[in-house]
């Protein structure tokens, strides 16, 4: 078990390392942040001086080595645009993203599992077909478009809910629905098919023969075993939501990591992009690892003997 965790951590570290290389080379191919600090009156000498101060005149491998040397000491550099440490910007923003992602996960779990259980309990009836249809359509709709349609209906037409920024609970509603949209549909379909599998097993048949009421069979006997599948998927979903937040935050001007990352991409603010991507990929790797561990805990039939 310890060996499994250590191997996985090492592999995760290698993966995060690879991601830093891609990010580093990618963003330096994409553009130069010098323009953020240059005025139209700047002379060529001044521009060269700025590039030198930023360290951008050094060869790429050297820049990367310097970046890694500082990064392992927790120093991700200063934002070129805001002139404050990138880690400080992340700290200010991470709370908003976590809030949004957790709210979306909660909504997806409640609605997705709820509808999935109902669909399975009424297997083969119009209720089941309606739920299946909702799941299929929900997964096919692009999330950013769902967000815009919600803005159109509840913001522009009805005027019920705010469509931008972060504030009270009302600000959270539309971004949460948008972010959870795809995952809700995924949970619905997952819960339904897992429930149907479980409902066919012998111990359920035995419970029925014993005369246990059907609602108790569905809600207790079947759902508990379905939860193993659902829990593991929930971990993966949290990681997916962290990524999905990039687009949702942009649409709703939500002041989180995602909107900061896209803004930094447009302005080529290297240190912020690097720090943000590393934080996201560490969270992603961590969530994947926790999922694998949970899988072993929840289902004792799975053993982590092998490393892959």
């Amino acid at each position, binding site marked *: 078990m310890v060996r499994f965790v250590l191997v996985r951590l090492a592999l995760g570290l290698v993966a995060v390392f690879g991601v830093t290389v891609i990010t580093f080379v990618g963003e330096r191919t*994409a553009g130069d942040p010098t323009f953020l600090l240059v005025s139209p009156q700047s002379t060529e000498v001044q521009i060269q001086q700025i590039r030198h101060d930023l360290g951008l005149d050094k060869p790429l491998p050297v820049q990367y080595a310097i970046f890694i040397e500082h990064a392992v000491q927790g120093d991700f550099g200063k934002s070129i645009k805001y002139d404050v440490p990138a880690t400080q910007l992340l700290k200010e923003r991470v709370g908003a993203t976590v809030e949004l992602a957790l709210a979306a996960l909660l909504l997806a779990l409640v609605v997705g599992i709820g509808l999935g259980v109902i669909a399975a309990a009424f297997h083969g009836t119009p209720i089941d077909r309606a739920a299946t249809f909702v799941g299929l*359509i929900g997964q*096919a709709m692009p999330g950013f478009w769902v967000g815009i349609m919600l803005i159109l209906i509840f913001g522009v037409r009805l005027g019920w809910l705010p469509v931008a920024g972060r504030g009270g609970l009302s600000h959270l509603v539309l971004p949460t629905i948008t972010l959870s949209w795809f995952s809700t549909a995924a949970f619905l379909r997952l819960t339904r098919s897992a429930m149907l599998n479980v409902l066919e097993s012998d111990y359920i048949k035995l419970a029925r023969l014993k005369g246990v009421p059907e609602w108790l069979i569905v809600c207790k006997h079947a759902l508990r075993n379905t939860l193993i599948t659902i829990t593991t998927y929930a971990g993966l979903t949290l990681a997916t939501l962290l990524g999905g937040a990039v687009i949702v935050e942009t649409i709703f001007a939500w002041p989180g990591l995602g909107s900061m990352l896209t803004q930094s991409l447009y302005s080529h603010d290297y240190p912020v992009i690097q720090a943000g991507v590393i934080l996201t990929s560490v969270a992603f790797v961590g969530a994947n690892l926790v999922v694998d561990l949970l899988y072993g805990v929840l289902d004792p039939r799975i053993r982590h003997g092998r490393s892959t």
Partner: protein
Amino acid sequence: MSVAPVGADVLGGLDGRRRGALRRLPLVPILLLAPLVVFGVLGKALQPHSTSSFDLATTLTPPVFLHGGSWSHVLGSDPLGRDVLSLLISGARASLIISLAGVALAGAIGVLAGVVAGHVGGAIDEVIMRVVDMQLAVPPILLALLLAGALGGGLRTLIATIAVSFWPTYARIVRGETIGLMQRDFVQLAVVAGASRFRIARRHLLPNMLSSIVVIATLQLGGAVGVESALSFLGLGVQAPNTSWGLMIADGRGYLDTAWWVATFPGVAIALTVLGANLLGDWLRDALDPMLRHR
């Protein structure tokens, strides 16, 4: 989020309908995907209006079923006076080309990497699988953003981004199938008979995993359409004056209070297309390769 995680659709399905599925043609998916293919291939010939010329006299005309609409712009017109239906038809071409080319490229890279990893093994296998693992270290949409940002917008960028984001799924599954097939008698016999590695891969391995590859590719098509539209929406994909459904939604976003149809119809087009691709993938999986749903 809407952008389907690569090969995400191993979850739901058509339980109990598997038997005899091959005999029944999937009518619904075919109908849903027909517009994409027909408009994508024929494109300009079917457009009621040109999308490259502006007509300021007809800006923001409502669709025909609303007050003030006319049959000349069935689905209304956009802020530049361009016909929304014609834009949708022209956007189908972008979606078709980009998703097909992206998925095909991803398949080519992934299958090659998977066969090499599974067949050669050793250090090469280790290296390839570590690269594949990187897919698990960064959210797909973030990777796509980084790549699109680095390569600059446009058709080629989108294809490359989809290929880079989607190939690991093939590599993982093809590697597994290769290792499984290598232990089978007919492959072992070919090895004993002195067949070259290339010949074994071409004659014995690839034909036996074709159905899995086709199923993954179809399931990924919907995801590719989603990635294309999301990146174009963010301004990192298809660039004006070219059109794409994602770009139309971005354009319509500023006119929600006066012209809801500009942002609404392209989203419907994306949803129906992705639905068609997902349903076709589910059908193919059940018909060709029922084992794949458990991976």
